[in-house]
Protein backbone atom coordinates (compact mmCIF):
# COMPACT_ATOMS: atom_id res chain seq x y z
CA UNK A 1 0.00 0.00 0.00
CA UNK A 2 3.05 2.25 0.02
CA UNK A 3 2.38 3.00 -3.62
CA UNK A 4 -0.83 4.67 -2.64
CA UNK A 5 1.07 7.90 -2.14
CA UNK A 6 2.16 7.83 -5.78
CA UNK A 7 -1.39 7.21 -6.94
CA UNK A 8 -2.57 10.06 -4.78
CA UNK A 9 0.19 12.34 -6.04
CA UNK A 10 -0.65 11.62 -9.66
CA UNK A 11 -4.34 12.32 -9.33
CA UNK A 12 -3.79 15.37 -7.19
CA UNK A 13 -1.37 16.73 -9.78
CA UNK A 14 -3.93 16.23 -12.53
CA UNK A 15 -6.65 18.05 -10.67
CA UNK A 16 -4.46 20.87 -9.49
CA UNK A 17 -3.15 21.53 -13.02
CA UNK A 18 -6.64 21.36 -14.53
CA UNK A 19 -8.08 23.61 -11.90
CA UNK A 20 -5.31 26.19 -12.26
CA UNK A 21 -5.75 26.27 -16.03
CA UNK A 22 -9.52 26.60 -15.94
CA UNK A 23 -9.24 29.35 -13.31
CA UNK A 24 -6.69 31.11 -15.51
CA UNK A 25 -9.01 30.97 -18.53
CA UNK A 26 -11.95 32.22 -16.51
CA UNK A 27 -9.91 35.11 -15.21
CA UNK A 28 -8.66 36.03 -18.68
CA UNK A 29 -12.12 35.87 -20.19
CA UNK A 30 -13.58 38.04 -17.47
CA UNK A 31 -10.83 40.63 -17.86
CA UNK A 32 -11.20 40.67 -21.64
CA UNK A 33 -14.97 41.03 -21.42
CA UNK A 34 -14.54 43.94 -19.04
CA UNK A 35 -12.13 45.58 -21.42
CA UNK A 36 -14.53 45.09 -24.32
CA UNK A 37 -17.37 46.64 -22.34
CA UNK A 38 -15.21 49.60 -21.42
CA UNK A 39 -14.05 50.12 -24.99
CA UNK A 40 -17.59 49.88 -26.34
CA UNK A 41 -18.82 52.33 -23.72
CA UNK A 42 -16.02 54.72 -24.60
CA UNK A 43 -16.77 54.52 -28.31
CA UNK A 44 -20.46 54.96 -27.69
CA UNK A 45 -19.89 58.06 -25.65
CA UNK A 46 -17.55 59.45 -28.27
CA UNK A 47 -20.03 59.09 -31.08
CA UNK A 48 -22.94 60.28 -28.92
CA UNK A 49 -21.21 63.47 -27.87
CA UNK A 50 -20.35 64.19 -31.50
CA UNK A 51 -16.83 65.36 -30.70
CA UNK A 52 -15.11 67.36 -33.41
CA UNK A 53 -12.43 64.75 -34.01
CA UNK A 54 -15.04 62.25 -35.08
CA UNK A 55 -15.50 61.36 -38.68
CA UNK A 56 -19.18 61.70 -39.49
CA UNK A 57 -21.02 58.49 -40.10
CA UNK A 58 -18.17 56.28 -38.95
Amino acid at each position, binding site marked *: *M*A*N*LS*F*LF*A*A*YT*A*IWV*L*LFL*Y*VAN*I*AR*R*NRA*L*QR*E*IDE*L*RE*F*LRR*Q*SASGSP*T*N*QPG*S
Partner: protein
Amino acid sequence: MTRRFGDWALGALTGITMLAAIAMVFLYVPTDKAQGIVQRIFYFHVPAAIMTFVAFGLVALASAMFLWRGTRFWDRLAHSAAEVGMLFCTLVLVTGPIWARPIWGTWWTWDARLTTTLILWLIYAAYLMLREFAGNVDQAARYAAVLGIVGSVDIPIINRAVYWWRTIHPAVLITREGGSGLGDPRMQATLLVSFVAFAALLGWLLWVRNETARLQDEVERLHQQLIAEHIPG
Protein backbone atom coordinates in the same frame (compact mmCIF):
# COMPACT_ATOMS: atom_id res chain seq x y z
CA MET B 1 -26.51 32.96 -26.50
CA THR B 2 -24.99 29.80 -27.86
CA ARG B 3 -21.71 30.67 -26.24
CA ARG B 4 -22.98 30.68 -22.70
CA PHE B 5 -24.92 27.52 -23.41
CA GLY B 6 -21.80 25.90 -24.83
CA ASP B 7 -19.81 26.78 -21.70
CA TRP B 8 -22.31 25.16 -19.41
CA ALA B 9 -23.32 22.23 -21.56
CA LEU B 10 -19.79 21.15 -22.33
CA GLY B 11 -18.74 21.85 -18.77
CA ALA B 12 -21.55 19.74 -17.41
CA LEU B 13 -20.78 16.94 -19.85
CA THR B 14 -17.16 17.00 -18.77
CA GLY B 15 -18.13 17.03 -15.12
CA ILE B 16 -20.44 14.08 -15.44
CA THR B 17 -18.14 11.92 -17.52
CA MET B 18 -15.17 12.75 -15.30
CA LEU B 19 -17.13 11.82 -12.23
CA ALA B 20 -18.05 8.52 -13.85
CA ALA B 21 -14.44 7.90 -14.80
CA ILE B 22 -13.16 8.64 -11.31
CA ALA B 23 -15.81 6.40 -9.80
CA MET B 24 -14.81 3.57 -12.07
CA VAL B 25 -11.09 4.04 -11.50
CA PHE B 26 -11.36 4.08 -7.74
CA LEU B 27 -14.37 1.92 -7.01
CA TYR B 28 -15.01 -0.42 -9.88
CA VAL B 29 -11.91 -1.54 -11.70
CA PRO B 30 -9.90 -4.39 -10.19
CA THR B 31 -6.33 -3.88 -9.08
CA ASP B 32 -3.71 -4.96 -11.55
CA LYS B 33 -1.89 -8.05 -10.33
CA ALA B 34 1.53 -7.11 -11.60
CA GLN B 35 1.71 -3.44 -10.74
CA GLY B 36 -0.66 -3.05 -7.86
CA ILE B 37 -2.65 -0.02 -7.05
CA VAL B 38 -0.36 2.45 -8.83
CA GLN B 39 -1.44 1.05 -12.16
CA ARG B 40 -4.64 3.06 -11.85
CA ILE B 41 -2.73 6.12 -12.98
CA PHE B 42 -2.82 4.46 -16.38
CA TYR B 43 -6.52 5.22 -16.77
CA PHE B 44 -5.87 8.94 -16.83
CA HIS B 45 -2.36 8.95 -18.22
CA VAL B 46 -3.23 7.21 -21.49
CA PRO B 47 -6.32 9.25 -22.45
CA ALA B 48 -4.37 12.40 -21.62
CA ALA B 49 -1.65 11.26 -24.00
CA ILE B 50 -4.15 10.51 -26.75
CA MET B 51 -5.74 13.93 -26.33
CA THR B 52 -2.34 15.59 -26.52
CA PHE B 53 -1.84 14.16 -29.96
CA VAL B 54 -5.41 14.91 -31.01
CA ALA B 55 -4.85 18.52 -29.96
CA PHE B 56 -1.62 18.68 -31.89
CA GLY B 57 -3.33 17.22 -34.93
CA LEU B 58 -5.83 20.01 -34.58
CA VAL B 59 -3.04 22.57 -34.44
CA ALA B 60 -1.62 21.13 -37.63
CA LEU B 61 -4.98 21.10 -39.40
CA ALA B 62 -5.93 24.60 -38.26
CA SER B 63 -2.48 25.89 -39.24
CA ALA B 64 -2.78 24.50 -42.74
CA MET B 65 -6.30 25.84 -43.11
CA PHE B 66 -5.19 29.21 -41.85
CA LEU B 67 -2.38 29.47 -44.38
CA TRP B 68 -4.78 28.39 -47.07
CA ARG B 69 -7.87 30.38 -46.17
CA GLY B 70 -6.56 33.14 -43.97
CA THR B 71 -9.62 33.51 -41.77
CA ARG B 72 -9.29 34.40 -38.10
CA PHE B 73 -11.33 31.35 -37.13
CA TRP B 74 -8.55 28.94 -38.03
CA ASP B 75 -5.85 30.92 -36.29
CA ARG B 76 -7.89 31.15 -33.10
CA LEU B 77 -8.49 27.43 -33.23
CA ALA B 78 -4.80 26.70 -33.75
CA HIS B 79 -3.79 28.87 -30.82
CA SER B 80 -6.43 27.38 -28.53
CA ALA B 81 -5.55 23.84 -29.50
CA ALA B 82 -1.88 24.54 -28.85
CA GLU B 83 -2.47 25.92 -25.37
CA VAL B 84 -4.88 23.19 -24.34
CA GLY B 85 -2.67 20.57 -25.95
CA MET B 86 0.25 21.78 -23.91
CA LEU B 87 -1.76 21.37 -20.75
CA PHE B 88 -2.54 17.76 -21.61
CA CYS B 89 1.08 17.19 -22.56
CA THR B 90 2.14 18.48 -19.16
CA LEU B 91 -0.30 16.09 -17.52
CA VAL B 92 1.24 13.18 -19.39
CA LEU B 93 4.77 14.19 -18.46
CA VAL B 94 3.82 14.62 -14.82
CA THR B 95 1.84 11.41 -14.39
CA GLY B 96 4.28 9.34 -16.43
CA PRO B 97 7.25 9.64 -14.08
CA ILE B 98 5.01 9.36 -11.02
CA TRP B 99 3.83 6.06 -12.42
CA ALA B 100 7.27 4.96 -13.51
CA ARG B 101 9.01 5.56 -10.20
CA PRO B 102 7.37 2.83 -8.12
CA ILE B 103 7.14 0.40 -11.00
CA TRP B 104 10.58 0.61 -12.56
CA GLY B 105 12.46 2.39 -9.80
CA THR B 106 13.40 5.36 -11.92
CA TRP B 107 11.69 8.72 -12.49
CA TRP B 108 12.63 9.01 -16.11
CA THR B 109 13.11 6.34 -18.69
CA TRP B 110 14.10 7.20 -22.21
CA ASP B 111 11.12 5.23 -23.34
CA ALA B 112 10.17 6.00 -26.93
CA ARG B 113 6.70 7.31 -26.21
CA LEU B 114 7.59 9.38 -23.19
CA THR B 115 10.58 10.89 -24.98
CA THR B 116 8.49 11.79 -28.01
CA THR B 117 5.97 13.39 -25.67
CA LEU B 118 8.76 15.42 -24.10
CA ILE B 119 9.88 16.67 -27.50
CA LEU B 120 6.28 17.43 -28.37
CA TRP B 121 6.07 19.48 -25.20
CA LEU B 122 9.11 21.44 -26.29
CA ILE B 123 7.55 22.06 -29.69
CA TYR B 124 4.33 23.24 -28.03
CA ALA B 125 6.37 25.54 -25.82
CA ALA B 126 8.25 26.89 -28.83
CA TYR B 127 4.91 27.47 -30.57
CA LEU B 128 3.50 29.48 -27.69
CA MET B 129 6.70 31.45 -27.25
CA LEU B 130 6.79 32.23 -30.96
CA ARG B 131 3.31 33.67 -30.75
CA GLU B 132 4.38 35.68 -27.75
CA PHE B 133 7.52 37.09 -29.33
CA ALA B 134 6.40 37.69 -32.88
CA GLY B 135 6.08 41.29 -33.97
CA ASN B 136 2.39 41.70 -34.62
CA VAL B 137 -0.73 39.58 -34.58
CA ASP B 138 -0.62 38.72 -38.27
CA GLN B 139 2.99 37.69 -38.16
CA ALA B 140 2.40 35.67 -35.01
CA ALA B 141 -0.42 33.82 -36.70
CA ARG B 142 1.54 33.07 -39.84
CA TYR B 143 4.77 32.01 -38.18
CA ALA B 144 2.93 29.86 -35.69
CA ALA B 145 1.09 28.22 -38.56
CA VAL B 146 4.39 27.38 -40.26
CA LEU B 147 5.66 25.84 -37.04
CA GLY B 148 2.41 23.97 -36.58
CA ILE B 149 2.73 22.36 -39.97
CA VAL B 150 6.44 21.60 -39.80
CA GLY B 151 6.05 20.28 -36.27
CA SER B 152 3.24 17.93 -37.17
CA VAL B 153 5.15 16.54 -40.12
CA ASP B 154 8.17 16.08 -37.88
CA ILE B 155 6.48 14.33 -34.95
CA PRO B 156 6.05 10.96 -36.67
CA ILE B 157 9.68 11.09 -37.78
CA ILE B 158 10.83 12.01 -34.30
CA ASN B 159 8.80 9.13 -32.97
CA ARG B 160 10.42 6.69 -35.39
CA ALA B 161 13.88 8.00 -34.69
CA VAL B 162 13.48 7.80 -30.92
CA TYR B 163 11.99 4.33 -31.17
CA TRP B 164 14.94 3.07 -33.22
CA TRP B 165 17.26 4.85 -30.85
CA ARG B 166 15.82 2.88 -27.96
CA THR B 167 15.39 -0.56 -29.42
CA ILE B 168 18.80 -0.94 -30.94
CA HIS B 169 20.42 0.19 -27.74
CA PRO B 170 20.33 -2.01 -24.62
CA ALA B 171 17.94 -0.23 -22.36
CA VAL B 172 16.33 -0.21 -18.98
CA LEU B 173 13.13 -1.01 -20.71
CA ILE B 174 12.16 -1.24 -24.31
CA THR B 175 8.48 -0.54 -24.43
CA ARG B 176 6.04 0.49 -21.80
CA GLU B 177 3.01 -1.66 -21.22
CA GLY B 178 0.40 0.17 -23.18
CA GLY B 179 -2.96 -1.39 -23.56
CA SER B 180 -1.50 -4.83 -24.01
CA GLY B 181 -2.10 -5.97 -20.46
CA LEU B 182 -5.80 -5.19 -20.47
CA GLY B 183 -7.37 -8.59 -20.42
CA ASP B 184 -10.07 -7.81 -17.90
CA PRO B 185 -13.17 -6.28 -19.55
CA ARG B 186 -13.68 -4.08 -16.50
CA MET B 187 -10.32 -2.49 -17.19
CA GLN B 188 -11.25 -1.95 -20.81
CA ALA B 189 -14.56 -0.37 -19.82
CA THR B 190 -12.86 1.96 -17.36
CA LEU B 191 -10.36 3.03 -19.96
CA LEU B 192 -13.13 3.69 -22.42
CA VAL B 193 -15.11 5.83 -20.01
CA SER B 194 -11.98 7.71 -19.08
CA PHE B 195 -11.25 8.26 -22.74
CA VAL B 196 -14.71 9.73 -23.26
CA ALA B 197 -14.26 11.93 -20.20
CA PHE B 198 -10.99 13.28 -21.51
CA ALA B 199 -12.47 13.86 -24.93
CA ALA B 200 -15.22 15.88 -23.29
CA LEU B 201 -12.60 17.74 -21.29
CA LEU B 202 -10.69 18.56 -24.45
CA GLY B 203 -13.85 19.79 -26.12
CA TRP B 204 -14.82 21.98 -23.19
CA LEU B 205 -11.35 23.47 -22.74
CA LEU B 206 -11.10 24.18 -26.46
CA TRP B 207 -14.48 25.88 -26.33
CA VAL B 208 -13.63 28.19 -23.43
CA ARG B 209 -10.10 28.88 -24.66
CA ASN B 210 -11.45 29.70 -28.10
CA GLU B 211 -13.72 32.20 -26.40
CA THR B 212 -10.61 33.86 -24.99
CA ALA B 213 -9.15 34.10 -28.48
CA ARG B 214 -12.39 35.52 -29.83
CA LEU B 215 -12.49 38.13 -27.06
CA GLN B 216 -8.89 39.06 -27.77
CA ASP B 217 -9.73 39.59 -31.43
CA GLU B 218 -12.67 41.76 -30.42
CA VAL B 219 -10.48 43.89 -28.17
CA GLU B 220 -8.01 44.26 -31.00
CA ARG B 221 -10.79 45.26 -33.38
CA LEU B 222 -12.15 47.83 -30.95
CA HIS B 223 -8.69 49.30 -30.45
CA GLN B 224 -8.34 49.64 -34.21
CA GLN B 225 -11.72 51.32 -34.36
CA LEU B 226 -10.72 53.69 -31.60
CA ILE B 227 -7.58 54.66 -33.42
CA ALA B 228 -9.42 55.04 -36.71
CA GLU B 229 -12.02 57.34 -35.24
CA HIS B 230 -9.59 59.60 -33.46
CA ILE B 231 -7.02 60.21 -36.07
CA PRO B 232 -8.20 63.19 -38.07
CA GLY B 233 -8.15 63.19 -41.84
